């Protein structure tokens, strides 16, 4: 092949750009637009992606009073009351109409039953109204694909940490394989439930408020450290710290800030350990943190220290993509749709349990 000179390449690109601009819009858009619906926990989001570009990503959060968690029925009721508004917002912000959408993606699972059904019902209805194919997406894979898109990490060890999930995942031969996970509750669940015990606000999220309080903690309270090989356990730590909170706060042995600080240090160290173990197994030089708990800057800092020691790179996203959102479902849906997946309406049932490795990842080698 004859070697091209730089100005020759630039010239060809310029000609191509002019030709593209002169094409009518309909010919230019051989692009794929996917709309994604997410509502497996207390966030309801609708996002639109066009060939890797986030066109819109509005979201609402169901926030309960301090000391209370969110229950499935009430969460579903919240989602029902706002979902159509959020859907319209997504279309308006993207400047698109129904006919511009190529595929309707929604969260098939895992998550809370009632909210999942609410969102699936709307997704099915608009897919039929607009005559577009439907695609059921795994929520965890949504997080992973969004993380990959935003950070451009090539083949990272993924730490997926949220209120509902705690998994260490690596891609291998057409599956997102779970290398380590919690054997009981998610790390975010541990943090959220502790926040209820000390009755701090759930606005914008209990984890965020624990993080702010932890910055003011000065005393380290020793808590159980429960790494089990490749896995972790948090329910023991939760019972211990709930008990410690009652005892120590009433006798002023420590402040709530000290407890927040100690809890974070303990659970985050555990997560860094199991991530490092998975990296050692895979020979990986990249770490990607996804999920709501991934917003936590202290976790990112601690992971960063470990990565630096190993000469690895750390990737994380900001809270618009870490926290559950519609665009992540749209992005995973985009990958799946472009590689030929579609969900038949009769198969579009939601499921509360849906393992990350159940999905065949046909869009990667």
């Amino acid at each position: 092949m004859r070697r091209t000179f730089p100005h020759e390449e630039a010239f060809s690109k310029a000609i191509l750009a002019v030709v593209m601009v002169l094409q009518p819009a309909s010919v230019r858009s051989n692009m794929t637009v996917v709309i994604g619906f997410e509502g497996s926990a207390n966030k309801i989001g609708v996002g639109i992606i066009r060939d890797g570009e986030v066109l819109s990503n509005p979201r609402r959060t169901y926030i309960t009073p301090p000391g209370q968690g969110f229950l499935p029925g009430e969460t579903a009721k919240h989602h029902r009351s706002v979902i159509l508004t959020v859907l319209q917002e997504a279309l308006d912000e993207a400047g698109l109409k129904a006919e511009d959408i190529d595929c309707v993606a929604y969260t098939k699972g895992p998550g809370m039953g009632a909210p999942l059904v609410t969102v699936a019902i709307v997704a099915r209805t608009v897919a039929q109204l607009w005559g577009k194919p439907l695609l059921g997406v795994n929520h965890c894979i949504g997080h992973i694909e969004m993380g990959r898109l935003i950070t451009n990490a090539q083949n990272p060890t993924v730490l997926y940490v949220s209120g509902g999930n705690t998994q260490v995942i690596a891609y291998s031969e057409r599956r997102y394989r779970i290398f380590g996970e919690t054997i009981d509750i998610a790390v975010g669940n541990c943090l959220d439930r502790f926040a209820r015990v000390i009755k701090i606000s759930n606005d914008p999220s209990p984890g965020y408020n624990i993080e702010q309080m932890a910055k003011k903690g000065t005393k380290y309270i020793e808590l159980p450290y429960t790494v089990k090989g490749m896995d972790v356990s948090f329910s023991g730590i939760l019972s211990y710290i709930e008990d410690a909170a009652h005892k120590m706060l009433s006798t002023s042995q420590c402040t709530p800030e000290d407890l927040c600080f100690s809890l974070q240090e303990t659970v985050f160290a555990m997560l860094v350990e199991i991530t490092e173990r998975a990296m050692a197994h895979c020979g990986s030089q990249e770490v990607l943190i996804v999920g709501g708990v991934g917003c936590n800057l202290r976790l990112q800092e601690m992971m960063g220290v470990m990565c630096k020691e190993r000469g690895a790179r750390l990737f994380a996203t900001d809270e618009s993509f870490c926290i559950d959102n519609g665009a992540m479902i749209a992005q995973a849906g985009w990958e799946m749709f472009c590689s030929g997946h579609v969900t038949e309406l009769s198969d579009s049932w939601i499921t509360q349990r849906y393992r990350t490795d159940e999905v065949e990842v046909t869009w990667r080698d």
Partner: protein
Amino acid sequence: MLFFENKGTFNQHMTKMPLSNRSSTKYVNMAACVSENDSDKKLEFFLKVPFPSEREAAIALQSLSPDPEPRKGGITKNLDVTGHTLSVRWTADEARILRVSVSSFLDHLSLVMETLDAFGPPVSQ
């Protein structure tokens, strides 16, 4: 409303209920029967929902039928469409189980109707 009769006679009460404030479907016919079958002693509940078109009734059916009942036992639910009417039939062992399922279904049905109103009419096939 459900009427309970000791002697196993058939009671039927028709109720008209406003379901949506928007134009399309204003009222829903509900027929609630309690019948004591010799063998089953199950409660039955029938619901008929008229839609403006056959297409919209079919869309509602496809949106509402895929998910299984959260509760494994003690309740069955069957959906069907004839013309532009969606009909639903429940059988349940206990009234409280029936109440939860019907109540959930009506919330979901409401949501489908609001979605049809806001984002319809369906595109031509």
